[in-house]
């Protein structure tokens, strides 16, 4: 295949392309979904193809095919070239790419146990044990447990003579209990809501989740939520659990630092950003204890890789230092706008999508608190646990999150449970009210496997290190 890609870029070079890259991507996915005591779905999916990106007449063209014959690749390369020429009839300045070191390399993500070598029976057996535990209450109407495994092999070849091969293995699992008493329905999950936990690791990650030991608590909390009261509307202190902090970082920091959004090229779907380029280095994004980084080299992070889909090496970039906004996620096309080189964040969702700036592992660096000490230190407030809903405006300012469960904090102790709790705020105001972050013992890199962006829609895998954190004067319990 590499030879075919080399032939392709050589042909594009001969046809006057300013730049071109060809990406072969083979992605294998195994998914298992168990509902109650039934394996609802056990499937394997294989996607293979080549995406060709061409810069000609100062504009981009992209075409992708699942036919891997030399003739099909040539046809697709020509189509990408023609598309670039069509784009050029509606352009201003020609696209300029930042200089880039050329790599010829191989990368393989860390994986101790290849999940594709573990038997289906072992996987479904574990999930069925989980759902059996979850169903031990009559009020648990549905117990669901799932696993997903991804193996992605890529070959990247460019007209600049880059040749990079990568293999990335990702594993994930999670479960939820849905309690229903005929009127009220409530859900609790482990280790995270929506799709559980996902990491760039092998089967060893599933083992580390210790799925069975949390099932009883999840079941009992789902049932308890049926009788819980709604959280009273108030402005108070909140302590947010680590997985919800990861999503808070994703939505209110990760997206607004994508330089393509900032420059307006994602307006039509995802929107823009309040972090305009005049704010770089000058804007107090958060309080002095807030430090955020984008690190594609973080072991096990779901945004970890060797090279991005422009052939830029994975790297760690400071985003917020002592509360001050200092860095964007960039690409070779956008970085020159702020006189920088790309920091390697361009990724595509498969062979058939053009790479976009995507979060790597955008993380809130750990602080110094222990969680029990932090709760003890809080006279009055609410503890918020696991995401249930998420919404934020198109410049990433006004957000509202809902959580699966919340607990009152009164005189340094957790009190009564609340259901359907939401909290809302404005991004800079919220982050400037952060006065405590828990330490590295509480810090976990959470995977977000469902980050949507772009047209056609692309779903990216991103990671977010976070620990429980406290924020002051936050509005909770919005009435509907």
């Amino acid at each position, binding site marked *: 295949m590499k030879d075919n890609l080399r032939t392709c870029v050589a042909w594009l070079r001969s046809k006057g392309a300013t730049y071109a890259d060809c990406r072969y991507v083979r992605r294998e996915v195994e998914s298992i979904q168990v509902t109650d005591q*039934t*394996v*609802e*779905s*056990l*499937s*394997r*999916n*294989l*996607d*293979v193809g080549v995406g060709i990106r061409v810069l000609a007449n100062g*504009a*981009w*063209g*992209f*075409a*992708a*095919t*699942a036919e891997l014959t030399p003739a099909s690749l040539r046809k697709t390369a020509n189509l990408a070239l023609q*598309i*670039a020429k*069509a*784009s050029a*009839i*509606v352009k*201003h300045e020609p696209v300029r790419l930042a200089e880039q070191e050329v790599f010829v390399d191989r990368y393989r993500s860390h994986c101790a146990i290849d999940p594709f070598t573990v*038997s*289906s*029976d072992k996987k*479904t057996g574990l999930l069925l044990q989980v759902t059996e535990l979850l169903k031990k209450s009559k009020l648990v*109407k*549905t117990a669901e447990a799932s696993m997903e495994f991804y193996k992605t092999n890529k070959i990247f070849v460019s007209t600049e003579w880059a040749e990079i091969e990568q293999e990335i293995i990702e594993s994930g699992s999670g479960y939820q209990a849905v309690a229903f008493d005929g*009127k*009220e*329905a409530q*859900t609790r999950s482990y280790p995270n809501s929506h799709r559980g936990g996902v990491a760039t690791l092998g089967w060893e990650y599933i083992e580390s989740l210790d799925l069975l030991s949390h099932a009883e608590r999840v079941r009992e909390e789902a049932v308890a939520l049926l009788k819980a009261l709604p959280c009273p509307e108030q402005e108070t202190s909140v302590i947010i659990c680590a997985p919800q902090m990861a999503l808070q970082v994703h939505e209110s920091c990760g997206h607004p630092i994508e330089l393509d959004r900032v420059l*307006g*090229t994602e307006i*039509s*779907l995802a*929107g823009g950003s309040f972090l305009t380029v005049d704010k770089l280095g000058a804007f107090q994004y958060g309080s002095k204890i807030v430090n955020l980084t984008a690190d594609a080299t973080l072991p096990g992070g779901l945004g970890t890789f060797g090279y991005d889909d422009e052939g830029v090496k994975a790297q760690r970039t400071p985003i917020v230092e002592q509360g001050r906004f200092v860095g964007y996620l960039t690409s070779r096309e956008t970085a020159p706008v702020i006189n920088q080189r790309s920091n390697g964040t361009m990724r595509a969702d498969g062979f058939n*999508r053009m790479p976009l700036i995507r979060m790597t592992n955008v993380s809130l660096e750990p602080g110094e608190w222990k969680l029990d000490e932090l709760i003890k230190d809080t006279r009055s407030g609410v503890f918020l646990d696991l995401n*249930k*809903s998420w*919404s934020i*405006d*198109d*410049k990433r*300012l*006004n957000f*509202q999150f*809902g959580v699966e469960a919340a607990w009152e904090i009164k005189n340094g102790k957790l009190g009564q449970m609340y259901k*359907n709790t*939401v909290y*809302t705020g*404005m991004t800079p105001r919220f982050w400037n009210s952060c006065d405590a972050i828990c330490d590295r013992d509480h810090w976990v890199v959470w995977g977000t496997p469902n980050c949507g962006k772009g*047209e*056609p829609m692309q779903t990216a895998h991103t990671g977010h290190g976070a620990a429980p954190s406290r924020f002051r004067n936050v509005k909770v319990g919005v*009435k*509907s």
Partner: protein
Amino acid sequence: MIGKTKLFKKLEAILANSPADATEIVYIGEEAGLTRYANSMIHQNVYEDNRRIIFRAVVGKRIGVASTNSLVDADLKKALLDAIEIAKAQRENRHFPGLPKPAKYRKLNSFDKATAQCSPMKRAQIVKRVINEATKKGLTMAGALATSGSEIAVLNSNGLRGYHPTSSASINMIAMSETSSGYASVMARRVADIDAVALAKVAVEKCLKSRNPISLEPGDYEVILEPAAISEMFEWLNFIGFGSKGFQQGTSFLANRIGRKLTSEKVTIFDSAYERGVVGVPFDFEGVPRKKVMLIDKGVAKGVVWDRLSAVKGKTKSTGHALTASDSAEGAISLNLSMAGGKVPRAKMISAVKRGILVTRFHYINGYIDTRNSVLTGMTRDGTFLIENGEIVAGIKNLRFTDSFLRAFKSTIAVSKETELMSSWWSSVGCISVPTVHLGSFKFSGKTDF
């Protein structure tokens, strides 16, 4: 596009030699082009030729699913054997009713060759005309124009054969000034049916009218929700309320409420692939004919959509709304959601509002807050206006709403005669068709700075 004859010939050969007790093959193929523009220039312009071939192998009551995007015979055979291997390693699914029998499908004309084969140059020329409308007024334009042709085929070892081609074209656009933006969008089966320049004029007018927006305090307001706003709400209502899974789990706002009046009688919501102009397929992804399903009829909860597996558990019959076998755990889902038009011409709706808000579209709606009560939250975007004494008097900085759909739609004052086709994430096989809606009460819970 491969075509029915060639496609069946290839897949029949694989099916005929399957050693499984029963076998199903679903083919979903698409050739799609999309031209994206921002800052009044084309910045992304893409084409893909891709497909997915999904094998469901049945061994006794055990089911295995595997898929590939390769049409090479060896790869197809391997995917089938993978599905059989998975089935053999599976547990029995006692609810599995077997594969469906052959059925007759209604004829649907939903394919236009010119749309499926729309060239990148033609798309670029349309985009150029759209951008010109903004440039003339000193504005910039951003958006996307998509054209595609799709083929869906379902074959099973019971002799069931379904094939249906569709085409789809959609455009969205945002005209932008320093302080405002205006949105317009539409979808159609034929790219020739899209009047992109007329839409651009709408987006430009909204942008100009909402310049220097005022800040309005959140609260309970009378609203006019335009089709883009309604369709964004409906995408979420589909997830949380109209499918079989939420209904069976009890999380749906329709669970245990069938037959009860839940909204104003002016509200009728249904799923139908057979309405005039819609993009739809006459069968689902296991080959069962799609039925028209009433979800809410004149305000009364009527039902949800079903596939064969969920129907067994729900002691009912499939309505022809199955997803593919690899997504079967999600239950059945509507792909052609429609709200019936009412009696009022859209042009007269604003004049009926004494003081209220016109919402062009919403952004980032989420419906998981309290699904039993259909509570949604989201932001307004790209054209939010204050109406006073029947006239638009100012643009408004964007607001967050948090409200129950059922509560808000109890207050429906009017529904427009006209409905519009809106694209969604499932637009290659379906769409949403909705009117403009006038509500007497809609709760805004917050606001933003722009």
